[in-house]
């Protein structure tokens, strides 16, 4: 896979003046491939949101380098090129919608880029269709549900035709149904349109659907790999007070009791299937 984002030994502290302040990012190195779906997980204050804001130059590393499609994020001249390539969706859907009508909000990014009106119209319609919100284009955002608002926010980024979307806990403030809607939309963008996705989350159930899971702890990367690999290291995750998906946890405990169950189970269906087989064998 072609490398798209390259993070090289990045250290970052919020207060650059204070030499003694601690680093929010503590030597992070990571490479993200084009079209990949990466989930970054970790508990509060582990630096995952800080990392997200580095990917489109909102924050600049204190030391170390980040390259997006070969452009250094420190390069002031190309700031807008980077922001055009990497869109960021934030946690609170209410706070990222600028205009009072859905389609006008989606157009906001394109308008800033100086795209001609006819072209914006096409892009806005496509973006709204991509997140399945086209029927709501004339609605006012404050009449929509959380999941719908978050999809509008994603459409607003999509209309700018980015190559990568970073989502910083996009589902944290949503109910289960809204979470489903948003995750479905995100996955569709990744699979159908080949957009690179970096999903920051603390829901392990969302992380298991990614191509790769990156576990962060105290500003560094604890471990990374395919979801089955990462979540099979239950002891290590527990030691760092990190969650595992419920199904994995159940299998882990049953294994602890001596049942013959396979490792690397991530979702409810597989879990039920494995337990069923185990019982049948007895």
């Amino acid at each position: 896979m072609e490398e798209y984002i390259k993070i090289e030994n990045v250290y970052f502290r919020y207060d650059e003046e204070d030499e003694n302040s601690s680093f929010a990012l503590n030597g992070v190195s990571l490479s993200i491939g084009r079209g990949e779906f990466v989930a970054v997980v970790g508990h509060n204050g582990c630096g995952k949101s800080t990392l997200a804001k580095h990917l489109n130059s909102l924050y600049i590393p204190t030391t170390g380098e980040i390259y997006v499609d070969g452009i250094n994020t420190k390069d002031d001249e190309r700031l807008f090129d980077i922001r055009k390539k990497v869109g960021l969706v934030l946690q609170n859907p209410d706070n990222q919608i600028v205009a009072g009508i859905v389609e006008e909000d989606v157009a906001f990014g394109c308008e800033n880029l100086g795209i001609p009106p006819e072209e914006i119209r096409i892009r806005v319609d496509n973006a709204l269709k991509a997140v399945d919100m086209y029927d709501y284009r004339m609605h006012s955002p404050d009449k929509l549900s959380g999941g719908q608002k978050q999809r509008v926010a994603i459409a607003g980024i999509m209309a700018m035709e980015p190559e990568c979307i970073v989502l910083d806990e996009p589902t944290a403030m949503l109910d289960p149904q809204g979470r489903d809607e948003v995750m479905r939309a995100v996955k569709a963008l990744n699979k159908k349109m080949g957009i690179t996705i970096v999903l920051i989350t603390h829901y392990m159930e969302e992380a298991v659907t990614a191509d790769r899971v990156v576990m962060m702890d105290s500003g560094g990367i604890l471990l990374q790999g395919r979801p089955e690999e990462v979540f099979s290291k239950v002891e290590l995750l527990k030691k760092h007070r990190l969650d595992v998906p419920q199904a994995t946890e159940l299998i882990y405990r049953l294994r602890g009791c001596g049942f013959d169950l396979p490792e690397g189970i991530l979702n409810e269906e597989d879990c039920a299937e494995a337990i069923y087989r185990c019982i049948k064998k007895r």
Partner: protein
Amino acid sequence: MVREITLGQYMPGKSLIHKLDARTKIVLLIAYIVFIFLCKNFISLLIMSLFSLLVIFMTKISFMKYLKSLRMILFVIILTGVLNVFYGSGDVLWQWWELKITTGGLINAAFVIVRISMLMMVSSVLTYTTSPTDLTDGLERLMKPLTVFHVKVHEIAMMMTIALRFIPVLLEETDKIMNAQKARGADMESGNIIQRVKALVPVLIPLFVSAFRRAGDLATAMECRCYNGGKNRTRMKVLHFSLKDLGALISCIVIFSSVIVSNMLFAAVI
């Protein structure tokens, strides 16, 4: 209670009024306000009232919505109406101590009530039929000449867009905070006015804190979408002045001049 405020609420539609250029509507509203205060007799007031009702009817938005907008300022209407009854000259109809009701006072009151109600409803026509973006876009274009005097026209328009967008959000938030404080035993409904104002402090402080946090988030989100202060910005919906707008302008000029004519032909009653 706060949810009932319909200020700045856009109701999408396809009527002729919806389709007019935002600039036309803004300019005509300003002219309307001037002319409704220029009415000097019942004939001209009648012309303006009929015109207002016609415009309201043409928006194809239920009349109830307009009445709702009136309810917000009902107190103001009644107060100014009542005060006006006691001012003015003419035949004294009723007197008690220094208070006199005169025919002139009654006419004054009638004029004030009709003017304020019409003013409110026709202003609502503008906000109900124009999307907030079109509205601020229209204002931005109308104020463009002011850039010569270093007025930050784009910034003002952007602030208005954001304000209109966040009015309902902050109203909802106020509701939530009030309920949260009530759940903690805060008393906001009893006591004299000073106590009630004091009781609002625990509502306002969290509201301000959250508003600032929202502002920070919004700024980040706008930066993420390449906002750079309006330089080289294009618009998805370009305002354009069409034949409809010309028609609207001409009909308004006719109606407004008929007000002047009736003012000259008939005796002024106010």
